[in-house]
């Protein structure tokens, strides 16, 4: 126990001596948490629309006005021809081209049917499909309006749909992103720092002194882990404060549950970092291995894309990452007020990760090279 205490004192001194590392640990995540949620906004609005109106009739003008006032679209330009509209798409100035053909109004009245053409820049999948869907819906609405004008009220059956959005009634994207970004930052700080830690001593040569000392393996690993665990919890707390003060996100669920989960998660994550460190020979190696895994963890975590839309094999990989469960749980507790019982399955996973990764790291740390 005394040995561990001395080790801890040494580690803390080492961390606090290097002011630039301290800045990396505390200031960088804070700044990123302040700025990132503003950028990670997937609200699909302000879709740039180029309109080619070949009809210039009162109906075509009404349709355009309706599209413009929907709040989703911004009329980027009126193009004189479809070709010119396409040029705007090529230059990234428009996402969609709506072409109203010559004789639109006349055909609609006389023949009862008229086509409109939409050209969507389909490279950007979400924007394209959502934009196309919005526009189609607005056109359908407009269509309905015309029908009501020209026909007596229909006797057909209608189904009214009342939709309500729970847990985030205004549909604000930051409520979804801020908790996840907090997890991300914590993961990067914890993962990268611990991954670099042991290998640094190897590279500089100081690990020899520890190896010849009577320090036990587990003491050494614990000595490396506890300081970063404490730093991680502080970063997490700072993050929660920023989320609250700046973004008005107050966890609906209980804070102790959140902290319990964060605590267990950090043990798992730090174990992972140390494991990488014991396998690496240079800091550059450790960094790239950590980057490799953390990048995959992040991409597969459900942070940016939904887990539901992944094929089964990918979902299994995603479940094998501690990050996935933590992001899910932080969103659950913070936004929905889920309790300990609701997240017990995920907590179980984290405990398993923590035990396996740390045992592995201790076993893989050899005192002789």
């Amino acid at each position, binding site marked *: 126990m005394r040995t561990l205490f001395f080790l801890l004192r040494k580690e803390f001194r080492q961390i606090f001596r290097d002011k630039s590392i301290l800045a990396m640990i505390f200031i960088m995540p804070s700044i990123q948490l302040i*700025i990132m949620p503003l*950028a990670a906004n997937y609200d699909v609005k302000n879709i740039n629309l180029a309109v080619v109106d070949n009809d210039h009739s009162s109906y075509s003008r009404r349709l355009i006005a309706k599209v413009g006032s929907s709040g989703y679209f911004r009329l980027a330009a009126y193009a004189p021809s479809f070709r010119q509209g396409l040029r705007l798409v090529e230059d990234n100035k428009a996402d969609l081209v709506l072409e109203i053909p010559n004789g639109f109004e006349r055909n*609609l009245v006389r023949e*009862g*049917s008229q*086509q409109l053409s939409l050209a969507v820049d*389909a490279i950007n999948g979400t924007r394209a499909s959502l934009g196309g869907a919005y526009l189609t819906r607005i*056109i359908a609405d407009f269509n309905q309006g015309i029908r009501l004008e020209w026909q007596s009220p229909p006797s057909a059956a209608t189904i009214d749909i009342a939709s309500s959005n729970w847990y985030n009634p205004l549909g604000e994207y930051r409520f979804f992103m801020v908790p996840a970004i907090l997890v*991300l930052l914590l993961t990067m700080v914890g993962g990268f720092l611990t991954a670099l830690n042991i290998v640094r001593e190897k590279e500089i040569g100081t690990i020899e002194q520890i190896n010849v000392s009577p320090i036990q393996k587990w003491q050494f690993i614990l000595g490396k882990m506890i300081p970063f665990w404490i730093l991680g919890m502080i970063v997490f707390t700072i993050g929660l404060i920023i989320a609250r003060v700046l973004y008005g996100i107050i966890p609906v669920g209980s804070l102790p549950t959140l902290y319990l989960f964060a605590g267990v998660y950090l043990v798992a994550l730090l174990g992972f970092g140390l494991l990488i460190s014991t396998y690496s020979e240079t800091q550059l*190696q450790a960094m790239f291995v950590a980057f490799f895994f953390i990048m995959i963890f992040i991409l597969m975590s459900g942070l940016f894309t939904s887990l539901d839309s992944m094929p089964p094999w990918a979902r299994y990989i995603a479940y094998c990452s501690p990050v996935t469960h933590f992001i899910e749980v932080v969103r659950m507790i913070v936004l929905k007020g889920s309790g300990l019982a609701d997240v017990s399955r995920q907590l179980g996973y984290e405990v398993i990760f923590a035990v396996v990764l740390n045992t592995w790291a201790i076993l893989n740390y050899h005192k002789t090279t």
Partner: protein
Amino acid sequence: MKQLLVFIRKEFYHVFRDRRTLLILFGLPTAQILLFGFALSSEVKDVNLAVVDFAKDNASQQIISRLQASTRFRLQRSLLSYSEMETAFRRNTIKAALVIPTNFNRDLLHTGRGQLQIIADASDPNAATTITNYLTAIVGDYQQELNQAAGALPYQIVPETRMLYNPDMNGSLNFIPGVLALVLMIVCTTLTSVAIVREKELGTMEILLVSPFRPLLVLIAKAVPYLVLSLLDFTLILLLSVFVLNVAIQGSVVLLYVVSTVFIISCLSLGLLISNVTASQQVAMLASMMGMMLPTLLFTGFMFPLENLPGPLRLVPNIVPSHWYYLVVKAIMLKGLGFEAVWKETLILGLMAVVLLGISLRNFKIRLT
């Protein structure tokens, strides 16, 4: 000149000795391309949906069987009450619920109006909107079919949608330029960020300082092996996209290589700059990885629409090299545009390289004296 070649050869040895880092360098883009290509999509499908069916009549059965037929939803029908539904939301086992009230069919037949309620978990606002849209469309189809008896609807506006550049809606199309930009940016910057600081930390810098090399030559010699590596990395990603993900290169491959070289040089210069101003490998790597990863992910433009950036943040992508590169790759690779469409972006990347290299050179000189 001969000196330079010898020096470059020495640096090559350094780089190629570290097999593990090399493995990661090529493993990382491979894994990312495969993940983006096969595992990640922003599409909404297989959403867990609960139907709370209080009606249990003919009409509700009809709607339920339509939902079952859709691949968008996975139906959970065992839920019988509101409270069960709430628990399911808190446990994260459902994303949305459709509530069908008692007497749904009778109301529809007698009064011509039926009421449905959609409840969506809006902690993920985009998913909630999309799910609500899909559900509304399915119910709308059903309603249309009910009304089919009254004959075809008059005054029909039929939107005809064309998907430009990506008729099959291949989801990986948008990601490939993004992954290229992201991987090259992070890998190049991190690689060179340790190049100089490593020598400082290990003490070999002294030897360099007393050698007759000019600072510029030192920087060039350090950067050349990484340029070669990065171009190999780039080639690998291109091959994977074409042969594994079936994304054809529409434009000129030569042009693509030219622009990529310019982009890589600007990233390498950024790395050298970081290497010059930091005191330890640890700080250099944390700065280049942790400091760059999120901003690159967010400001490149392939994850989140840059149009949503608020006020001054909208200027940030302009100083992020990967943003310009992403635009160029999209234009050349996917849209098949030529040099006249991308010269501006290429010029900006070139200027960035010159400026960054200039600054690092100045910093390097200062350290020499």
